[in-house]
């Protein structure tokens, strides 16, 4: 039995997104991923005695942008606070974050549900610094002889996006996360490289009897780093809570952790053991005053968001499904838009992007951002089909050739002599040859066997290495056979 017959899930998510700035939030060190340990560090991000933070303005720009993309109110006055706790990956043993006056609040984003569109509230968006990373000599901290710390990530800017507890099913949670990550990607806030851990989720989970309007006791599960983990974790945790409730037991308010290997959540600390972070205003930084003008400047620079893009694609005649696939990554959507400017049919273009080109890129693990076939080249290829220069079948081969060599489709068609034979005189001779060599099929056709025509067309195509204009071949064959 599933819990969902009796209970309704109530879920809110805190999403941590690494921001796509070149340098860290409070110093000039690079944010690049994967450098040698402790090479992207300086006295400031190492928290040496006497150093002071200087806020990277680009972080504020991106935070405002995120707020606008999520329909938030941008605070005119906001500030940083210190969140105090001890851990070796935290150079100062406090994290510079935002507490009571976040930069953005009261926003929303829209998701699709089986019952139509639904607005999910965004409580707040705030800026903070990332911590470093423990490097253990063994498997875990408890089984290791020693542990080191790599501070390359320390001070990388993070955006924390907190949703309202508006999500009512695992599917809704996933839809919310996918939409959120897409928005961050589209607005250029983050590269959203999940595999590098640049997006992390904490979920708040509670159940309540269906029909009830009160919230149940919630647990918080920390540090999930993929959509798949979130799904599995939510499924496990809601079952766990449902079992407790069905047995008449209570759900403890606590922080839990997700064990990916075992596929279960484990208690980390109870409400009583919860950290007292002793937040207080960061005295080393001045308050952030954001004037209307600044917000408007960022608003003007905000690119089209996924929802708007989907609507626009649909207005071009694409299906809901095609629009959703094309906008699933900003790179693919941008690719579509650029190719579309060369005057090709939207549906044909969508098919080629989602079909043949996607398949090619997948083989080498390429993305649309660095596709060896440029949008101009793909559009050129489609135009060659449209004006009858090549057939769709030849075009597939030409696409592979562009992919391999980077040459323009027109050049490839010319070099390889792939242009369609549309000269009736030249084709007539070939058609006559084929008819003479396949008397059996001719007889069949004349006897009323329609399929024999297809065979004869195939023979003409074979004789021309597929270059014959299929329409013309059909016409010529029919003419000859009717005589």
């Amino acid at each position: 039995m599933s819990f969902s017959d009796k209970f309704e899930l109530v879920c809110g998510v805190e999403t941590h997104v690494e921001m796509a700035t070149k340098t860290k939030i409070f110093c000039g060190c690079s944010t690049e991923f994967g450098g040698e340990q402790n090479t992207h560090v300086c006295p400031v991000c190492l928290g040496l005695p006497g150093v002071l933070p200087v806020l990277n303005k680009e972080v504020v720009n991106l935070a405002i942008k995120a707020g606008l993309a999520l329909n938030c109110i941008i605070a005119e006055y906001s500030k940083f606070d210190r969140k105090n706790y001890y851990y070796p990956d935290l150079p100062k043993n406090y994290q510079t974050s935002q507490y009571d006056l976040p930069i953005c609040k009261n926003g929303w984003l829209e998701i699709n549900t089986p019952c139509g569109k639904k607005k999910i509230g965004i409580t707040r968006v705030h800026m903070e610094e990332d911590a470093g990373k423990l490097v253990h000599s063994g498997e875990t901290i408890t089984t290791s002889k020693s542990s080191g710390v790599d501070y390359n990530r320390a001070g990388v800017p993070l955006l924390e996006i907190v949703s309202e507890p508006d999500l009512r099913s695992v599917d809704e949670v996933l839809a919310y996360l996918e939409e959120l990550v897409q928005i961050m990607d589209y607005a250029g806030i983050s590269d959203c490289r999940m595999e590098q851990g640049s997006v992390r989720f904490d979920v708040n989970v509670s159940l309540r009897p269906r029909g009830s309007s009160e919230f149940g006791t919630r647990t918080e599960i920390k540090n999930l780093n993929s959509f798949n983990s979130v799904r599995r974790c939510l499924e496990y945790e809601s079952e766990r809570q449902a079992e407790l409730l069905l047995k008449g037991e209570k759900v403890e308010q606590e922080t839990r952790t997700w064990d990916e290997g075992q596929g279960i959540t484990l208690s980390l600390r109870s409400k009583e053991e919860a950290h007292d972070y002793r937040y207080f205003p960061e005295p080393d930084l001045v308050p952030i005053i954001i004037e209307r003008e600044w917000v408007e400047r960022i608003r003007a620079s905000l690119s089209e968001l996924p929802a708007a893009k989907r609507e626009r694609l649909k207005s071009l005649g694409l299906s809901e499904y095609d629009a959703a696939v094309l906008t699933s990554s900003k790179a693919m959507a941008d690719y579509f838009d650029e190719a579309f400017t060369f005057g090709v049919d939207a549906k044909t273009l969508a098919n080629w992007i989602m079909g043949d080109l996607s398949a090619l890129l997948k083989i080498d693990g390429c993305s649309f951002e660095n596709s060896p076939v440029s949008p101009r080249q793909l559009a050129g290829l489609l135009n060659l089909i449209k004006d009858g220069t090549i057939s769709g079948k030849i075009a597939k081969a030409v696409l592979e050739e562009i992919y391999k060599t980077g040459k323009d489709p027109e050049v490839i068609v010319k070099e390889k002599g792939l242009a369609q034979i549309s000269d009736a005189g030249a084709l007539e001779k070939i058609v006559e040859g084929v008819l003479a060599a396949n008397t059996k099929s001719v007889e069949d056709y004349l006897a009323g066997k329609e399929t024999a025509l297809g065979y004869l067309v195939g023979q003409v195509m074979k004789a021309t290495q597929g270059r014959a204009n299929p329409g013309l071949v059909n016409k010529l064959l029919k003419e000859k056979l009717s005589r």
Partner: protein
Amino acid sequence: MKLLNMSLAALHRLLKEKKISSTELTKEFLRHIQKAEPNLRSFLTITEEIALRKAEETDKKIAGQQPIGILEGIPMALKDNICTEGIPTTCASRILENFVPPYDATVTEKLKEAGTVLVGKLNMDEFAMGSTTENSGFYPTANPWDFARVPGGSSGGSAAAVAAREVPFALGSDTGGSIRQPAAFCGVVGLKPTYGAVSRYGLVAFASSLDQIGPLTKTVEDSALVLNIIAGHDPKDSTSVPFIKPDYTQYLENNVKDMKIGVPREFFAQGLKPEVQTVIEEAVRVYEQLGAQVEECSLPHMEYALPAYYLIASAECSSNLARYDGVRYGYRAKAEDMIDMFTTSRTEGFGQEVKRRIMLGTYALSSGYYDAYYAKAQKIRTLIKEDFEQAFTKFDVLLSPTTPTIAYRLGEKTDPLALYLGDVYTIPINLAGLPSISLPAGFADGMPVGLQLIGKHFAEGILLRAAYTFEQNTEHHKKIPAWLEEASKNVF
């Protein structure tokens, strides 16, 4: 004595006119330091080699007929909480005993560029917490006027070194009086600039919203000359204010005619020793005779300044000092596991007073207590700022004693609360972020007494003028301890 006692301007003239080389000058001071240190112990580190190398640079410039800056080639020393690249910066704490910063504080950099010769790092109360320098994790410093007394603190080493003429000038830091109080106890000039006038980058933080670096000098003129070098906006310090830095020496005018001086009555309340009061009242008379309009005034919320200060400063320090955990640098205790390493390193590395304030601050910030303590203290801070703003609508400067007493005897004050009360006149100024100067006003029981002047934000100029005028019309700053008179007879 002449040389050791000379003003910065006089030393500059000697160098420029090639009457002495920077190397000779530096050696002279180093010799004097060697003689004075056994009794004083104002230094934690003496950087003889580095100093002589730097002095040589200046000498080459002079020999090459290149022009030199006003402080170029002149020895000086820094409080040991100001970072110096490649030179230990310990904050007089065991926990940073082995810490050598890989970078210079902005003030260190500026003094280097100005060509000054760093001869060493000066003793202090551990992490600038204290007012006697007895809280040094290494050894206490003596008062040059009476070796049995404290030099004050936390910049006790800086004040003692200047008073004993071990250096022509020094830098200290002032969070609640840590420049002015030792300046008063040692009979030198100590200036705490406006919060934001001097970069804090590289000053090891005690309480970030209160800390400010400033000069300790023999005279007001010297103070202006040093301020000229160290003040100014620094993009590395977000709390440093972009302001147009004037030439502070232009304010050194012997004239207080029609200057309006307010004397807050709260600064003459109970706790003020009569012999100190007498000296300050005499100072008031001096100003009156010089044509200033002196009037009593009131700062009604001053009685709350002390508790507000100890809450805010301790709260900030509890967070600022969290980084000393034995993981990255500094003292690391032998331990069984991670938590044990944190705890033991901090337990063994920090002294009593530091631990007391970390506890106090941690408590004040704790959930459930924040509003009652930290938030309320911030409200009081606003009231105190407003009191001052109100007073400055009427007055150009405010005048008070720097401290309620003369320097304590070593070991005399053991009750922390009694010591905290000694900061009662200096603390409100830090809470309000105002500039303030302490200058020699006379003597009580043979010990120096300090006169404190307070100005508006960025009104160091008028403060310097008021101080300079007093100095030009009195002789107190010219007196030096008897042993010094004797010990330096042979010099130059």
